[in-house]
């Protein structure tokens, strides 16, 4: 009954089908095929990426849980651990920006609290098409509103993120969400199904026909009518999830359960089979007991549904009543739908009939792994070639143009819609290089950041991968935090294209090199392939989420200048590196050249230097130099100072003025300090073998930069600030096109 058309609709190749038959010793029925199609999909099985992901360093002393669980876990001392992970929700957010992004938040939150951690922060990394087009504006508005609606309602602060705008994201926006949670090290839970005879409980929303993937749909059982009624996007219910969160944490706190996993992508199928596979057990489920929202659902539909806000729990037999009491307190049902079995099988019955009888090992672990061909794109060489345009005569005008590029401009429009203060831990608010959260009752704090410049990775994937890690860690260093763990979301095009596969491989190697150089473990992540529309892939977009530890939050440093008369010092040296810069992109519409080079050893020295200066209390502000270069970095340091004070900078050097102002040479940080600390600071820099040059002074109400003695910018801070501040709201209020 399984014919090639059905296989194609389920995205299963003939070879894969033969492998399934070999593994189970017979032909699967349609429901079983549906299960394989989900679990062997790229999304669940990582069949194209597995081989490469192995290159990432995942070990370190502080790692409690590396990749492979719902989220990574890092020990931060005092019996506490941070639990974090990043996920993409790209495709749904294009189809239905609000709900797509909202359910993305819901999904990643569940990954965190299933581990016994209370979610304490969300960060979002967003990529949209240019705001000049109304469709892109609608997506931007919808995604931000969706994230805000879910995160705000459930009471987890969205404390940071990033937004880039570029044409290739018009038809394929990226929505990546990171969630960070906090747990006690002795109360971390895993997706386990141990102990034959233990009950399997279903909690949360009822199962409906949502999210059953379109590609796996076509079959004689479904008419056109049903097809139409089966949307691929789910509607999120943050209220239900809040109840689920509180109830789950309560049963875990009381140690009543054995294992728990959320039913996210691939729903009941995935959670049941993965839990069993991890424990070497089996699970038997009776679908008649599964709470259902719609009538007449088939086993196929129930097993494949991706309805949100659901969890699967394996409880200790003697605790079921107590577990149910706690869920009832939160107005939720915990329904027994099956039990743990011996023999390693997923057995599903419906109306007394066995409808699925499969070895979990085959479903979960025996999917083929592919080494897909990888080839350097032929166009790369010409893309990297760059003939610089002549130096613009009016650099002041150009500076304002760069400041108003939405990628550079103030993101307050975004984060003002997010409750970034609930839980009262946010001690360094969004707007800084990294967000800092205090840990109540402790001296130390956590810093978090997400970062990834996809123009760099497009022009040179390996360098781009390294820079993504380096910049994230530099952001942490600027606030006084040392990186302790990394998660990453890799957004790429179709892996069956050799070009894409090459980008993927290069980016991973770049990330791995950088993580090794900084000695930080990767504890997990997510791969999102097939981000192509109409044959065009998005830029290879790795998004790095890095968590850092601040020893003493009273020493934390922020990017804004603090006092009139403070000396501004540039750490690191500036080279003529304009390739891949936001300056060339926003002023000349040039997306080419080689991205800035990066020397990881040197980068590390700069971080150490900055951290040391902070712990010695030498500096009053630190801001990393990234998109927009030194000029933008200095301007932001003015904008972020409480009184919006100005500065006068003198940049020396024989470089072109635009390279001095806007070049994005790596490993640079702009700091300010009282003149009395200058000598010690410079001595410390020398000791650390880091270039440090005083470049000017804070103060006044104007923003002034001289290059090699010639004044190229002299503007009121207020003017610059307005340009930067109003750019995104202005673009969003353009009339419809």
């Amino acid at each position: 009954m399984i014919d090639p058309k059905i296989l194609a609709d389920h995205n299963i190749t003939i070879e894969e089908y033969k492998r399934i038959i070999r593994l189970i010793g017979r032909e699967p029925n349609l429901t079983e095929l549906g299960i394989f199609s989900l679990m062997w999909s790229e999304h669940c099985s990582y069949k194209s990426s597995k081989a490469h992901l192995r290159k990432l360093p995942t070990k370190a002393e502080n790692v409690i849980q590396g990749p492979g669980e719902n989220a990574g876990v890092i020990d931060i001392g005092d019996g506490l651990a941070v639990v974090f992970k990043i996920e993409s929700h790209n495709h749904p957010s294009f189809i239905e920006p609000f709900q797509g992004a909202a359910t993305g938040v819901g999904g990643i939150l569940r990954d965190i609290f299933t581990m016994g951690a209370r979610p304490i922060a969300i960060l979002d990394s967003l990529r949209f098409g240019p705001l000049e087009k109304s469709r892109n504006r609608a997506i931007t508005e919808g995604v931000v509103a969706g994230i805000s609606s879910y995160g705000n309602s459930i009471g987890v602060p969205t404390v940071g993120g990033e937004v880039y705008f570029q044409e290739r994201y018009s038809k394929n926006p990226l929505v990546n969400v990171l969630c960070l949670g906090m747990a006690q090290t002795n109360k971390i839970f895993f997706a386990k199904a141990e102990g034959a005879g233990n009950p399997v409980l279903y909690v949360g929303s009822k199962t409906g026909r949502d999210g059953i993937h379109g590609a796996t749909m076509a079959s004689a059982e479904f008419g056109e009518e049903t097809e139409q009624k089966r949307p691929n996007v789910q509607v999120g219910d943050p209220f239900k999830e809040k109840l689920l969160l509180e109830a789950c944490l309560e049963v875990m706190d009381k140690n009543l359960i054995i294992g728990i996993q959320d039913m996210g992508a691939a729903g009941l199928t995935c959670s049941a089979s993965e839990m069993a596979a991890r424990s070497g057990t089996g699970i038997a489920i009776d679908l008649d007991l599964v709470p259902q929202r719609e009538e007449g659902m088939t086993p196929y539909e129930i097993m494949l549904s991706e309805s949100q806000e659901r969890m699967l729990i394996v409880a200790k037999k003697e605790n079921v009543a107590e577990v149910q009491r706690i869920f009832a307190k939160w107005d939720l049902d915990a329904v027994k739908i099956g039990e743990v079995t011996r023999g390693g099988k997923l057995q599903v019955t419906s109306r007394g009939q066995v409808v699925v009888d499969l070895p979990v090992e085959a479903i979960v672990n025996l999917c083929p792994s592919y080494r897909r061909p990888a080839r350097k794109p032929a166009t790369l060489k010409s893309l990297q070639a760059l003939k610089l345009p002549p130096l613009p005569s009016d650099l002041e005008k150009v500076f304002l143009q760069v400041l108003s590029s939405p990628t550079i401009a103030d993101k307050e429009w975004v984060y003002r819609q997010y409750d970034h203060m609930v839980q009262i831990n946010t001690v360094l608010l969004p707007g800084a290089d990294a967000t800092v959260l205090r840990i109540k009752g402790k001296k130390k704090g956590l810093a978090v950041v997400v970062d990834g410049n996809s123009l760099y990775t497009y022009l040179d994937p390996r360098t781009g991968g390294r820079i993504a890690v380096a910049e994230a860690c530099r952001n942490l260093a600027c606030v006084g935090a040392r990186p302790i763990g990394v998660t990453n979301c890799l957004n790429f095009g179709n892996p069956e294209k050799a070009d894409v596969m090459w980008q993927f491989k290069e980016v991973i190697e770049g990330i791995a090199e950088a993580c090794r150089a900084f000695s930080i473990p990767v504890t997990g992540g997510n791969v999102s392939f097939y981000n192509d529309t109409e044959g065009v892939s998005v830029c290879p977009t790795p998004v790095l989420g890095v968590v850092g530890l601040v020893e003493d939050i009273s020493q934390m440093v922020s990017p804004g200048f603090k006092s009139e008369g403070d000396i501004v010092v540039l750490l690191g040296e500036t080279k003529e590196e304009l390739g891949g810069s936001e300056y060339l992109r926003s002023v000349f519409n040039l997306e080419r050249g080689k991205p800035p080079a990066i020397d990881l050893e040197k980068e590390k020295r700069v971080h150490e230097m900055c951290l040391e200066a902070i712990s010695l209390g030498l500096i009053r502000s630190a801001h990393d130099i990234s998109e927009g270069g030194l000029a933008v970095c200095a301007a932001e340091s003015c904008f972020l100072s409480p009184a919006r004070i100005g500065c006068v900078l003198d940049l020396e050097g024989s470089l072109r003025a635009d390279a001095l102002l806007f070049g994005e040479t790596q490993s640079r940080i702009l700091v300010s300090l009282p003149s009395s600390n200058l000598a010690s600071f410079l001595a410390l820099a020398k000791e650390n073998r880091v270039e440090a040059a005083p470049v000017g002074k804070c103060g006044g109400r104007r923003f002034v930069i001289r290059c090699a003695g010639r004044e190229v910018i002299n503007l009121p801070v207020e003017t610059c600030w307005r340009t930067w501040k109003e750019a995104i709201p202005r673009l969003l209020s353009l009339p419809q096109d």
Partner: protein
Amino acid sequence: MKFGVVVFPGSNCDHDTLFILQKVLCQEATFLWHKDHDLGRVGCVILPGGFSYGDYLRAGAIAKFSPLIEEVREFAERGGLVLGICNGFQILLELGLLPGAMLRNKNLKFLCQHVHVRVENARTAFTHRARPGQLLRIPIAHFDGNYYAPAETLHRLEASNQVVLRYVDENGEATEPANVNGSASNIAGLINAKGNVLGMMPHPERASEAVLGSRDGRLIFESIILWR
């Protein structure tokens, strides 16, 4: 003074409020569960911020039917102190313990930011520790904080000094831009005629520690603690 912080399904500033009361202000404080029928001899009931019942239907609309709310109503009628913060304010309006209603913010967006509010009436149980006209810098975080009441009600509220907090700019002027959510007469906080029920949109619990950038919110809690 013993405080009770009511927990509704969907409350999310309950822990924050309890933390400030217990750990920062060293007060006796306890959670009160919405399904219970007993306030347990507290001297002040706080309805915390959050999204009770997901803010579905209307913010605060469903929480008003909680079993415990009947006790809160009686407690208020007997003169007990009740403070509604953000969602708690919305619930007090829905309950009718305070007049008026909340509409969506004028820009139709959720707003999370620091604002300045001016203490318009410093003789209440909730504000007597402040100077008349004192500016407080406290965060807001809401979608529905655009206060509405019919003109007669507004007149009455003004005439009887029931407007306790008003959105102002950093110079203390009640300007249009400072009125970020569009509230009638820049109203940020209101008290009932009897003076024992206050609703306010800003979150004082988010501004009660230096590490969070402002301690102005403490004035509200300290006023309650030191009342009579």
